[in-house]
């Protein structure tokens, strides 16, 4: 059977499974809708968190990105895993004990202020929307590449499936769907990685092959021969200060992202909240320690397959022909010698304002004759390893699972911010259970439709938006929640001032340096890392303003005391 037929079968099977889980898990009360009835076992919550966390970008693009960055790719590897240590030790157990539904719930109650609640709602909605758009774009891309379906149609199929299980099952449906999606995506990621590790090194375990076989040494040598620096050589793309600040921004941003934080509300006890953070990172680490191995294998393999060969010769190879046809792989014979040269620099000039190559405009300042889109690195591994069409189809389903699981987690945050925090906690606190559930379902449907619209018409600055989301989360939520738990003296005035200053400073720097040609006046820090500085600013301001304003009321101090003690989490939902 052909790859396309297999892909249809697997995609239909997995989508059927997701919808089936949504119908099985449908809920009738708000606690089920927002926090899955707090009945999710820690291992299952770990899997759901991992699927929620790993997006289309982690699954499809990250290994390719690292293979061009070499050592500097550590910003993603450490940056997108280290935050879980912060979550497990500093936030998750206490937020579970607090035991409400959302992040604005905590901020609003702890800082005894509707203003603080509104600031949190705005930040949560903005952060989540910026994130959900690339997910839906990713769904469309997978449909287009594997099934020849126009990406807009693919996007709306994905939107319809997500809407179905999210509206019916709320957080409960989303959680159990994510467990299934994690299973699909990790199998799809590991099988090709194991196969390619065996072929290139004889060791089937990618992490061990990377560390103990001579593949990295061979790649380093190959790079030096072609005029690159060694793959393992640090600080080629970013200097040390920027690597530090970007890594920190991604770590602290992770710990401040609402869609990750709320996953810890869904387990039965404080003990389970701690444990599920551990399981989540273990499941994430399976992919995140495999990715850098794929990066090395794929880069070595690409250079070896293409460099010095004739164009006729490489076009005989199936995957080369296939990806050249999609435009993700492009050749140009700059020196008219009939053979391919891989060298430093770009094969083509870029179409202004994009990362797409202008194929009619070779970059004559470089001898490089190959353009490789980063996404090919993962998408082509099964073909490079000559795996069966079934596995290629599985990789497509894995990419879809990664995108849909992240999208659904973000959509529940948007919906709960609007229906729970805004409608119930601010506009109509007397709403009945039935009204609240109806508003929640309408809220998620609206969120899905708006996100679908933006997925179809994405703003031209998606890449910066993701940096924005992390910078914002790090400079607003992380300090507010951390101090809310660990410093009883932090006041409403301190937290609100700190959040606003952190947000405004970070937003001003990112927007200024990205769009208005503002120089990177703060020590040359790149916009991706400025959230760390915004966060430190927030901490300092919150601390001093808090000491200058009257201490929080007695009941708030009692609340802080109570979140520090695990006992009673099961019956502390409404206090």
């Amino acid at each position, binding site marked *: 059977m052909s790859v396309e037929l297999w892909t249809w079968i697997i995609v239909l099977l997995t989508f059927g499974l997701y919808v089936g889980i949504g119908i099985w898990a449908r809920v009738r009360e708000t606690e089920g809708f927002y926090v899955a009835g707090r009945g999710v076992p820690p291992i299952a919550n770990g899997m759901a968190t991992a699927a929620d966390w790993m997006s289309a970008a982690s699954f499809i693009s990250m290994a390719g990105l690292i293979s061009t960055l070499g050592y500097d790719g550590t910003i993603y590897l450490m940056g997108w895993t*280290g935050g*879980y240590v912060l979550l497990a*030790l500093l936030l998750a157990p206490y937020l579970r004990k607090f035991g409400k539904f959302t992040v604005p719930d905590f901020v609003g109650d702890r800082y005894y202020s509707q203003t603080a609640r509104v600031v949190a709602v705005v930040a949560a909605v903005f952060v989540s929307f910026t994130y959900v758009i690339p997910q839906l774009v990713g769904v469309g891309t997978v449909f287009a590449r594997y099934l020849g379906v126009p990406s807009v149609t693919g996007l709306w199929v994905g939107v319809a499936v997500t809407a179905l299980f999210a509206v019916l099952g709320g957080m409960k449906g989303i959680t159990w769907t994510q467990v299934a999606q994690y299973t699909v995506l990790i199998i799809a990621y590991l099988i090709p990685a194991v196969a390619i590790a065996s072929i290139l090194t004889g060791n089937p375990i990618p992490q061990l092959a990377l*560390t103990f076989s001579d593949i990295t040494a061979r790649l380093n040598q190959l790079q030096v021969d072609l005029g690159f620096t060694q793959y393992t050589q640090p600080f080629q793309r970013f200097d040390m200060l920027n690597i530090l600040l970007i890594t920190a921004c991604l770590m602290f941003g992770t710990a401040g992202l609402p869609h990750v934080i709320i996953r810890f509300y869904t387990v039965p006890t404080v003990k389970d909240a*701690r444990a599920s953070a*551990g399981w989540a990172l273990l499941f994430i680490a399976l992919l995140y320690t495999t990715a850098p191995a794929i990066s090395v294998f794929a880069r070595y393999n690409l250079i070896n397959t293409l460099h010095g060969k004739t164009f006729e010769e490489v076009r005989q190879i199936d995957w080369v022909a296939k990806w050249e046809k999609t435009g993700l792989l492009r050749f140009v014979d700059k020196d008219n010698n009939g053979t391919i040269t891989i060298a430093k620099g770009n094969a083509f000039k870029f179409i202004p304002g994009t990362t797409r190559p202008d194929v009619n405009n070779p970059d004559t300042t470089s001898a490089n004759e190959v353009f490789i889109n980063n996404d090919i690195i993962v998408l082509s591994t099964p073909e490079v390893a000559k795996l069966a069409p079934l596995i290629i189809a599985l990789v497509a389903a894995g990419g879809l699972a990664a995108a849909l699981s992240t999208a659904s987690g973000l959509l529940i945050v948007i919906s709960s911010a609007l229906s729970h925090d805004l409608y119930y906690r601010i506009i109509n606190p007397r709403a009945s259970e039935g009204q609240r559930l109806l508003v929640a379902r309408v809220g998620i449907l609206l969120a899905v439709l708006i996100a679908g619209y933006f997925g179809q018409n994405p703003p031209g600055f998606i890449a910066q938006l993701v940096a924005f989301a992390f910078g914002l989360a790090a400079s607003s939520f992380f300090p507010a929640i951390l101090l809310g738990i660990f410093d009883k003296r932090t006041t409403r005035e301190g937290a609100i001032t700190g959040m606003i200053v952190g947000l405004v400073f970070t937003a001003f720097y990112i927007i200024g340096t990205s769009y208005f040609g503002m120089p990177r006046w703060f020590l040359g820090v790149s916009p991706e890392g400025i959230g760390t500085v915004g966060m430190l600013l927030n901490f300092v301001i919150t601390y001093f303003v808090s000491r200058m304003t009257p201490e929080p009321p007695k009941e708030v101090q009692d609340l802080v005391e109570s979140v520090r003690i695990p006992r009673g989490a099961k019956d502390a939902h409404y206090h």
Partner: protein
Amino acid sequence: MDKAKADAYWKANITLIRNLLIVWAVVSYGFGILLVNVLNNIKFGSVPLGFWFAHQGSIIIFVILIFIYVSQMNKIDQQFDVHE
């Protein structure tokens, strides 16, 4: 729960968190970034050690740190009789 006991429990928790976060920072920011060039003079398996911490080691240690926290906190919870 009396105040002295609650304070002692909180102190035990803070000490554990502090120790684990020191390890967290040393392996990632220390070994993986600040000291990477020094450690790269040493080989781990067949890759430079600093590179290994940045691409593999710190992630593995992060996972271990969380599970140490989980098991230690379970013990502390029992000891202070605040477990669920």
